[in-house]
């Protein structure tokens, strides 16, 4: 089916985009479009005005800057996949990127677009939560930052206000003693997660100084598991401590059973995946060299 008629706006600066978003009546922002274009074609959304931000070159950056890793609004999933910076220090990003959609989708779809779409099965929301990240939004009243744990309200609903444009997401810089990972259970290559877990571990000597655990696809939004993070902090990494964190994550999850698995099964998977993700994150925190060289290869297809 064809999309309904719309007006296509192409701002070339953030200021221009914010002015447009303020002036127009209920506009829609187009970034990668890999979810938006199909929903428009099926007329699930029929915006009169589409503000296409792909021409705003200043939003296309991926860099460490001061205290943060900053991911601009035009960074594609494939950019994350190919980034040496990500491969070196951000295991959870490196794990998640190649598990999203397929190569063509990853070439177009953006990380920020995926986060702001707030699909409870979206992968990046959990990565952002596990890293205690935030998004930066520009609106008619200026700029504000929204912490990840205040961003996701309901499926496809965020704390963003009408007229606001998310210009970047950022997470605290991953130090040498920090590691992270993302473990995703899916039925086939390119599928959404049945359940997935993002984990981050920062070590101080032998003990865990800080941790983050967040879940995909097992509640109405991506959710953090502060209980697990709290339990891990101050512990020496061990099978026992990861097991307890897994139990806490499973308790925090609230999955729905469907044709692919019962709620109990998914809860159990959360427990298992949390342990695996924590083990990988810890190995990466301790190890030297690129994060990508530690951990499970979840991309393997066939034998």
């Amino acid at each position, binding site marked *: 089916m064809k999309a309904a008629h719309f007006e*296509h706006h192409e701002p070339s600066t953030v200021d221009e985009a914010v002015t447009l978003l303020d002036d127009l009546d209920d506009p829609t922002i187009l970034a990668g*479009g890999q979810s938006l*274009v199909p929903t428009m074609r099926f007329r699930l959304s029929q915006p009169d005005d589409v503000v296409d931000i792909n021409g705003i070159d200043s939003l296309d950056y991926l860099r460490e800057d001061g205290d943060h890793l900053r991911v601009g609004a035009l960074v594609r999933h494939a950019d994350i996949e190919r980034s040496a910076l990500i491969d070196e220090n951000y295991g959870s990003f490196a794990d998640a990127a190649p598990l999203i959609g397929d190569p063509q989708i990853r070439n177009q779809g953006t990380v920020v677009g995926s986060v702001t779409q707030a699909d409870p099965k979206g992968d990046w929301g959990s990565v952002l939560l596990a890293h205690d990240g935030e998004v930066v939004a520009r609106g008619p009243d200026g700029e504000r930052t929204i912490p990840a744990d205040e961003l996701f309200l309901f499926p496809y609903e965020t704390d963003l206000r009408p007229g606001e444009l998310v210009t970047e997401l950022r997470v605290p810089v991953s130090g040498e003693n920090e590691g992270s990972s993302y473990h995703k259970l899916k039925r086939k290559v390119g599928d959404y997660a049945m359940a997935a877990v993002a984990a981050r571990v920062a070590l101080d000597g032998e003990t865990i100084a800080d941790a983050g655990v967040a879940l995909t696809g097992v509640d109405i939004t991506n959710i953090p598991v502060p209980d697990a993070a709290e339990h891990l902090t101050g512990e020496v990494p061990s099978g026992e401590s990861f097991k307890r964190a897994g139990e806490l994550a499973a308790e925090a999850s609230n999955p729905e059973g469907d044709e692919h698995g019962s709620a109990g099964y998914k809860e159990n998977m959360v427990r298992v995946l949390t342990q695996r993700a924590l083990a990988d994150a810890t190995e990466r925190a301790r190890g030297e060299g690129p994060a990508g060289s530690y951990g499970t290869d979840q991309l393997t297809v066939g034998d």
Partner: protein
Amino acid sequence: MTEKDVVMTVNGTERELSVEPRKLLVHAIREDLNLTGTHIGCDTGNCGACTVYKDGQAVKSCLQFAVQADGSEITTVEGMEALPEAGMGDSDLHPIQEGFKQMHGLQCGFCTPGMIMAGKALLEENDDPTDEEIRVNISGNLCRCTGYQNIVKSIQYASDVLNDREPPESPVEHEDASLETAADGGEPTTDGGETASDGGNPATDGGCSCSDGPDLTMDYPTGGEDR
């Protein structure tokens, strides 16, 4: 609703179009440019039959609007034969196309244009991929006939050609004579003799002598052009 002017370079030729913003890139390619080699399979972004090579990467042309392709450079399956790599193998075809032909990488052929473009994107980045890398790379392209085995072999074949290695023998026995008649628009036949002598074009000798198969003397509707 206002139309927008879009300029894109398709298969090396600059094309100017005036399109409604809601028009998908795949519709612009198929209907406005009449390049119907790019297919629409699923209409949802799953199947990859609409894959084109845009600004150095494979994208699904049903998942973006034509206005988003303004200023871009696009290669479709029709442009493969004009690329510098074409002719490196045993034919004038691009090595990937030749691979699909030689290794029987297609049955119904519907997914093939998308597979070829996904294969091109992979080989541009890595001209000597492993089987697994090929499989990951075509994970956005569905084939309901082949079971993928021969598609992987076809792309591997192209990799062999690009790397100056001897590609494997085709598992398919085809006589060159009948293949050539097929390329001329005639019917490939199994007996070989008759087609070889008369050039295989029934239109020139007053009608089709065969009892089944399409009537090659009539004009079949091509679609697209009249819209």
